[in-house]
């Protein structure tokens, strides 16, 4: 094929159709158990740890990662892999052992809901609206970027790609909810890993092995001298100086992503037990370890096999075209689609959860002083999923026109809010003295600084041309400082408000321990027998949810009043 496309054969199309049919079948199969909001948004709290771990990783990897990470490795070297390595591991442990247990025990649907209990409704609603909008915008970016990618490698019309993806994902996400999303993610991870491994192994074999790749790349010239270095100097010309990698990525962005991004945390909230929630997040670290081997190694091998590519992003499509036989090309194409769908379905389900639980339900309660019936919440959640999907499809071309580089767009948008939200989350969980207005002021000041630093007039403030790592760091620092200062200037929160929401509370409070023990017994013995799969479970969520006021009074720990 000389037109730049992959040139799929009949068997390749058969593999792709088989994959799409399988995903639809698995996804819609879970629709039969969706009868309440908790079933739709939290998979009836029945997810096992292995599915959570696999789903977290696959939600994080998009189709464009296959192309852009390999292209980045071709251009900058192994430092690109930091985004999957240091960009995940310490953060996943912090999320698993510090944040996830609190979220899971408190029975919340969303991270903003937890922050609403810890701080106030203003924090909850403003954060939920921001995250919801960011996820929908990200959805549009992912759809259009992948459609453009598929046009390049497959010759498909972008609009056809967008609509095919939207319809397939829309059907199983709106009908099967989080259970469908997570279980299709498991299937998608297998397809991605098999497809990615096929290309990586074939490329390394063709290049003569890892040792030969290293020798030849380092001998290619001084500009390749740091291609096998993960830690680059602070004054490097690449976007990955060690300072930004350690402070911006390792401390702020990765922790905010794995502990505060609804699209990631929601899987752990749907766990069948606290242990499964923690184990799933730790397990994700193991799968993340493999991602650079699948997406970055082909980029390095391409330097040997296809040196001098004008556009480094052509590395993977060219390798597929050059090295893979018919059948494996179809598998690799299915891996692209799997990566796209797994990210789109997660963003869609989470955006819908945020706007339903934290915005629509709260506004309805404020307007009518009545709780919305569970079946209506379910209807709203499904309707919002469809609305968000349509909005993402319609705004996708507009996003592409406004941003010259899709990756810059995604990172800039996320850097607006990740630092400030991590700061108030961290202080909220670790520091009893953090107050509602401290949290709100910290969030508002951090987001304001992020917005200001992203303005065109601020170009040159940082030496890096892509300063999102530094913007995330400084907005985190400012939000942290403002929260502390304003908290000291405002009266402390009453103990009953923060009960069960701050580290150390559980150990100090026997009544809270009793409440937790009852909750654990109910979850593991009565409703959700341990080690029963998601399929076939009967959800406790059919019972009406307790009034938010009652749950807040309990610090979110238990629906039953605990004697103190």
């Amino acid at each position, binding site marked *: 094929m000389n037109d730049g496309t992959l040139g799929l054969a009949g068997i390749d199309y058969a593999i792709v159709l088989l994959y799409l049919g399988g995903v639809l079948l698995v996804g819609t199969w879970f629709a039969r158990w969706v009868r309440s909001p908790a079933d739709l948004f939290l998979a009836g709290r029945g997810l096992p740890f292995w599915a959570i771990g696999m789903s977290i990783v696959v939600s994080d990897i998009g189709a464009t990662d296959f192309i852009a990470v390999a292209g980045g490795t071709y251009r900058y070297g192994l430092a690109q892999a930091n985004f999957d390595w240091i960009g995940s591991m310490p953060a996943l442990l912090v999320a698993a*052992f510090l944040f996830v247990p609190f979220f899971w025990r408190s029975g919340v649907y969303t991270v903003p809901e937890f922050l609403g209990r810890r701080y106030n409704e203003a924090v909850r609603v403003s954060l939920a609206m921001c995250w919801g909008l960011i996820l929908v915008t990200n959805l549009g970016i992912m759809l259009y970027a992948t459609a453009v990618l598929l046009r390049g490698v497959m010759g498909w019309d972008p609009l056809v790609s967008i609509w095919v993806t939207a319809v397939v994902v829309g059907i199983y996400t709106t009908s099967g909810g989080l259970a469908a999303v997570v279980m299709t993610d498991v299937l998608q991870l297998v397809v991605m890993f098999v497809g990615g491994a096929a290309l990586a192994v074939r490329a390394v074999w063709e290049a003569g092995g890892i040792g030969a790749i290293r020798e030849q790349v380092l001998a290619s010239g001084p500009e390749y001298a740091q291609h096998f270095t993960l830690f680059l100097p*602070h*004054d490097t010309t690449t976007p990955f100086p*060690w300072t930004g990698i350690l402070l911006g990525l390792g401390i702020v962005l990765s922790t905010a992503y794995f502990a505060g991004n609804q699209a990631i945390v929601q899987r752990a909230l749907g766990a069948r037990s606290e242990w499964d929630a923690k184990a799933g997040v730790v397990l994700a670290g193991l799968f993340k370890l493999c991602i650079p081997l699948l997406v970055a190694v082909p980029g390095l091998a391409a330097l040997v096999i296809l040196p001098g590519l004008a556009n480094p992003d052509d590395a993977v499509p060219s390798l597929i075209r050059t090295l893979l036989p018919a059948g494996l090309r179809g598998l690799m194409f299915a891996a692209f689609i799997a990566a796209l769908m797994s990210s789109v379905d997660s963003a869609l389900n989470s955006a819908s959860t945020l706007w339903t639980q934290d915005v629509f339900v709260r506004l309805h309660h404020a307007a009518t002083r009545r709780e919305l019936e569970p079946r209506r919440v379910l209807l709203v959640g499904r309707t919002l999923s469809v609305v968000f999907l349509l909005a993402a499809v319609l705004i996708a071309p507009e996003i592409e026109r406004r941003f010259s580089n899709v990756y810059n767009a995604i990172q800039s948008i996320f850097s607006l809010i990740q630092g400030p939200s991590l700061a108030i989350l961290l202080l909220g969980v670790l520091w009893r003295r953090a107050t509602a207005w401290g949290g709100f002021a910290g969030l508002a000041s951090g987001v304001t600084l992020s917005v*200001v630093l992203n303005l065109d007039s601020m170009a040159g403030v940082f*030496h890096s041309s892509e300063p999102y790592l530094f913007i995330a760091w400084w907005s985190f620092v400012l939000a942290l400082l403002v929260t502390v200062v304003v908290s000291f200037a405002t009266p402390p929160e009453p103990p009953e408000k923060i009960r069960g929401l701050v580290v150390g509370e559980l150990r100090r409070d026997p009544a809270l321990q009793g409440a937790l023990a009852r909750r654990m017994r109910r979850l593991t013995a009565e409703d959700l027998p*341990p080690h029963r799969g998601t399929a076939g479970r009967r959800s406790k969520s059919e019972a009406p949810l307790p009034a938010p006021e009652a749950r807040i009074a309990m610090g979110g720990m238990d629906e039953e009043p605990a004697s103190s």
Partner: protein
Amino acid sequence: MKELLQGVFGGFDAMLLAIPLAAARWILVAFFVAAAGASFLLPREFIFRGAPDQRWYRDLRWWAIGVTVPYVLIYAFVG
């Protein structure tokens, strides 16, 4: 405003530039080790809460060590 921010960020940059790259790499390795090691400070009851039993292979502290070791090796010897 821009000058003020440049002054603040520039001062911090100058401080970071004084740290040798090799030292920075070992700071990162220590960061990984501390994160995994800290899990052993957590009470056993917390680690197993919600687990069907308390067999050794469900001890998430060992999971944390097992998952972190490859990262430590990568940054210590490849980085």
